[in-house]
């Protein structure tokens, strides 16, 4: 199976190890992953607050390229990209008026919108296309007894009813459970990490991050798994700020789920970008 790949801007910067580990995991499972040609920024949550038609057209340019290149499934690992692309797709499918407008704008770029492109999150692809059993039997390493907090963040399960429950998703819990790990009780698994608020209203975002860290550590998690570059940075890079502000002493590793999955599939640590994490993961001797 071959997938088209939309890395998104963050995966070229702060979320680089997500890009590396995602490619490594797909390779290890024998899945094709072809980067979308000359992709552009999806518009994130910001463009939508400025102008709707323009933001939809900018984001639809990617869907148009995917369609032109014969892609059906476009894999978008960043939660914000995933939601924006998915939403663009739905808006354009549901509203002929918008579609006409956006199509006209796309015409300026020599492109046209394609109805049949599907936007997918890699977690969805791995759990539902490949299957947990297949992955578990391909694994060369297990994480018996590793207590982890699977954090999904807000956007991959909302607002578009997608591949998992919108408040209590379980895809990651099951996937890593099959590899021996123990997902801890983590009721805040889809609570917001603050997103861009970390820059615009840091006091509010630091509160949110603190709550997530408290819940993970008090329930005994040794690491947090994320599916989004924004969540990863907020939870990992701002732990220091949280500690300073609230007098806490958090030092919990925050990994992209593909990094841990890659370890299970026997990928090299370097290929998974583990050296890029600010707080290193210390695994007990491999079983």
């Amino acid at each position, binding site marked *: 199976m071959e997938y088209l790949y939309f890395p998104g*801007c*963050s995966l*070229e*910067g*702060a*979320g*680089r*190890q997500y890009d590396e580990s995602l490619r490594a995991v797909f390779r290890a499972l024998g899945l094709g992953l072809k980067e979308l040609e*000359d992709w*552009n*920024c999806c*518009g*994130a949550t910001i*463009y939508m*607050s*400025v*102008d*709707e*038609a*323009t933001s939809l*057209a*900018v984001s639809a*340019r990617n869907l148009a390229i995917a369609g032109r290149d014969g892609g059906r499934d476009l894999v978008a690992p960043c939660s914000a990209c995933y939601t924006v692309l998915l939403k663009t797709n*739905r*808006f354009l499918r*549901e*509203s002929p*008026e*918008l579609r006409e*407008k956006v199509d*006209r*704008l*796309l015409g*300026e*770029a*020599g*492109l046209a919108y394609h109805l049949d492109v599907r936007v997918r999150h890699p977690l969805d692809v791995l759990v539902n296309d490949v299957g947990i059993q297949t992955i578990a039997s391909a694994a060369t390493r297990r994480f018996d007894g590793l207590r982890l907090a699977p954090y999904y963040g*807000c*956007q991959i399960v*909302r*607002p578009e009813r997608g591949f998992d429950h919108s408040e209590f998703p379980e895809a990651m819990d099951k996937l890593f459970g099959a590899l021996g790990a123990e997902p801890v009780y983590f009721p805040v698994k*889809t*609570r*917001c990490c*603050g*997103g*861009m*608020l970390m*820059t*615009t*209203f840091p006091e*509010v*975002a630091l*509160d*949110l991050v603190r709550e997530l860290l408290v819940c993970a550590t008090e329930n005994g998690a040794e690491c947090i798994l994320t599916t989004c570059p924004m969540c990863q940075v907020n939870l990992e*890079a701002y732990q*220091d700020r949280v500690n300073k502000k609230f007098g806490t002493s958090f030092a919990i590793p925050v990994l992209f789920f593909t990094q841990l999955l890659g370890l299970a599939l026997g990928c090299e640590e370097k290929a998974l970008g583990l*050296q*890029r994490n*600010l707080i290193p993961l210390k695994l007990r001797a491999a079983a």
Partner: protein
Amino acid sequence: MRQRKTVPGSLPPRERELRQIFLREVEVVPGGDRLSRCLQCGTCSGSCPVSYAMDLSPRAVIALFRAGLIEEILHSRSIWICASCYMCTTRCPQQIKITDLLYALKRVAMEKGLYPDRFPVYLISKNFVRLIGRYGRNHELMLVVRFYLKHKPLELVRLLPLGLAMFRRGRLMLLPKRIRGVAAIRRMIEASEALELPREEAPVQYVPGSVGYRAVGALPERAV
């Protein structure tokens, strides 16, 4: 909140103008017309992780809109604190697209310039849009540095150690990448701006008619 005298059945001109922009913005949101079905149950406010920091809860935003006080909403910081987590939208028993409505309100505020000076969200959005028009992609470093330079320069000093740590690990792209299609993107943006001509008539089908001020101004009553 400022008290204003409003005669039921009529709206001050300012309110009418803002309302028209809002309705135009909301018109394109699929399902945006469900606004009038709000039960004022408060599920949205109770589910919102940041409502504690808002001066108007999401429920109150809807109530004020229906009471014809859009300007009060635009002066609040609530719409800017929304982190777009969609919890309210997921839980609303009336399937009201609250997050999308808040986006629409943000667009009205942007269009009318109704936000404090050097307002963080506005600054960041403006820079972001500029970056996309210039490179086709976002560039984290430029976005953040420009923002802090204007908004709170001292913060940059505080963030320096973090920036260095990220840089050492190869997680900080120093220069932006320009995509090949950037000229095409600019053409799209320009063409879109040309399309955005103000309309003669406001779309009327979304005016809530069942609560508060009925038959708002010149707008006809909504069939239930």
